[in-house]
């Protein structure tokens, strides 16, 4: 596929790629610059490339809303969900590997059904149930919902990586006198670090960006970032500067994490598809 082609075709290819790249980056660039513009500048069409950056929008946002709180809530939800899912997922994947029968190994594919369950199907009954025991409005409800909807797929993902670990590794650990739990902590965790990182970044990204559960289960005090974005932009007079500021504050952390953990993000996403 890397064969040489006529020069005009190469130009056509590069132009096409630049258009796509522009389409991917332009909306993000626009929302970031909008958040740094003062009122009049945001309405300029075409958007100005050079302008005097101001922090008005951010100052106003922190003055009128409870943003530190929402940010903290998001961090609590995302980190707890990630820890729960990665821990339980790894344990379960190890358990599946320990079962000798092939039926259990096959059963692990049933976990994939969990991925097909729409969020709304769980949200409503879970809401009714948690409402009865007074858990709605708490962050715990959101953590529960996020965990249960990501756990099946991530167990399946780690289980796939786990089955690639050669049996000899387990064997030699036994010969050296490791118990099975010691094998898990001393052998499996270190070897599977990349796989666990992949799973963790996928869960983190889901949990940070998730809106529907968070919106259903939280109240004024426990809004996460995404809910704040949805609520505040709904009622606001259209002011793209402030909206840009909210959008930036909620997406910059996860974009930064994704950038640094790019390798793991990619390996997590391709694991299910390419390797099988």
């Amino acid at each position: 596929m890397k064969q040489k082609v006529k020069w005009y075709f190469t130009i056509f290819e590069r132009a096409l790629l630049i258009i796509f790249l522009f389409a991917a980056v332009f909306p993000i660039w626009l929302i970031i610059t909008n958040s740094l513009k003062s009122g009049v500048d945001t309405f300029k069409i075409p958007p100005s490339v050079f302008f005097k950056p101001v922090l008005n929008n951010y100052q106003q946002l922190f003055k009128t809303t409870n943003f530190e709180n929402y940010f903290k809530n998001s961090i609590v939800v995302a980190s707890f969900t990630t820890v729960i899912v990665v821990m339980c997922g790894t344990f379960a994947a190890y358990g599946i590997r320990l079962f000798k029968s092939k039926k259990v190994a096959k059963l692990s594919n049933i976990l994939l059904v969990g991925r097909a369950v729409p969020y709304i199907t769980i949200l409503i009954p879970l809401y009714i149930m948690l409402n009865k025991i007074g858990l709605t409005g708490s962050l715990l409800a959101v953590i529960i919902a996020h965990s249960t909807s990501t756990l099946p797929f991530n167990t399946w993902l780690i289980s796939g990586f786990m089955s690639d670990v050669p049996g000899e590794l387990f064997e030699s650990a036994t010969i050296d006198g490791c118990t099975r739990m010691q094998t898990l902590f001393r052998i499996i965790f270190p070897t599977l670090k990349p796989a666990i990182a992949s799973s963790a970044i996928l869960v983190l990204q889901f949990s940070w960006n998730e809106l529907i559960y968070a919106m259903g289960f939280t109240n004024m005090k426990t809004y996460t970032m995404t809910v704040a974005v949805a609520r505040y932009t709904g009622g606001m007079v259209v002011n793209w500067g402030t909206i840009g500021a909210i959008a930036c504050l909620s997406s910059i952390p996860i974009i930064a994490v994704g950038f640094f953990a790019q390798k793991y993000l990619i390996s997590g996403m391709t694991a299910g598809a390419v390797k099988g």
Partner: protein
Amino acid sequence: MDRKSFGLSMEKGDLLPTILILPTLLIVLCFTIIPMFYGIYVSLHEYRLGGSLSSENLVGISNYVNAFKDSTTKKAIVNTVIFAVGCVAGDLVFGTIISVLLYRLKEGVQHILRPFMIMPLLVAPIVTSLMWTSLLDVNGVIYWALGKIGITYAQFKGVSGTSTALFCCITAHWWTNIPFVVIVLSAGLLCISEDLYEAAYCDGVGLMKTFWYITLPLLKSVYMTIILISGVDTIKSMDVVFGLTKGGPNNSSMTLNLYSYLQAFESGNMSYAMTLSVLTLILALVCFGIPFVRYNNRKRNQS
């Protein structure tokens, strides 16, 4: 993989593997499986939030009968299917073009460009829908650009037109999901041996034909997985539609799960909302969920 060479063999009555699986099993059982059946149970009643779930309110399948009489539900089912098919089709076409274009670049350039290409994936869907609201604003950039080629608001009504709202949602969804397709396809392209292309080149086969007769057949399983994963995610997700049009105008971009959400949390009509979400579940399982599991089982059997 050879299970016989596994040193830590299990004996009869060995509880450790079960204990290890137990937390996951309990979480999924308590918070996914039980709620799901409870939801089906609720959908057989007449129930509003705060009301009682007694046998007096048992109405059988009349909620389902009403759902199929409700014109909004019918519209929502059609929209959900159009939305899923439109999103996946666009994802595949644009994703293929982008990943092939990226593949044909030098490796160093690929590494520089890739982070920018996958950036949209990391942005929360609700933020995406905000961006597109601002882009599709009447005074926004898209109308400015369309104005340059002579298309006015009257000709293309964007998110406020009944015939164009769903298309706008599909476009915004493309923006979020194409990076995923690019990531997976790029990995798939790298697995194809360079020799095959060289052989084709020596035989004088053109670029298009090489792609059609070599790349595409070899990527069949990758495409299959992308279709199933993206399809299921599209039916499940509602953030983009919620943020962009909220189902409007006049229900023209209403999807099944969004309608269900609005019934539950804006009208408080829990049992009817649950009926709709059971329909969403059936749609997701029949179209993508079951094929996905069966496909993966077959793949694991082969290897």
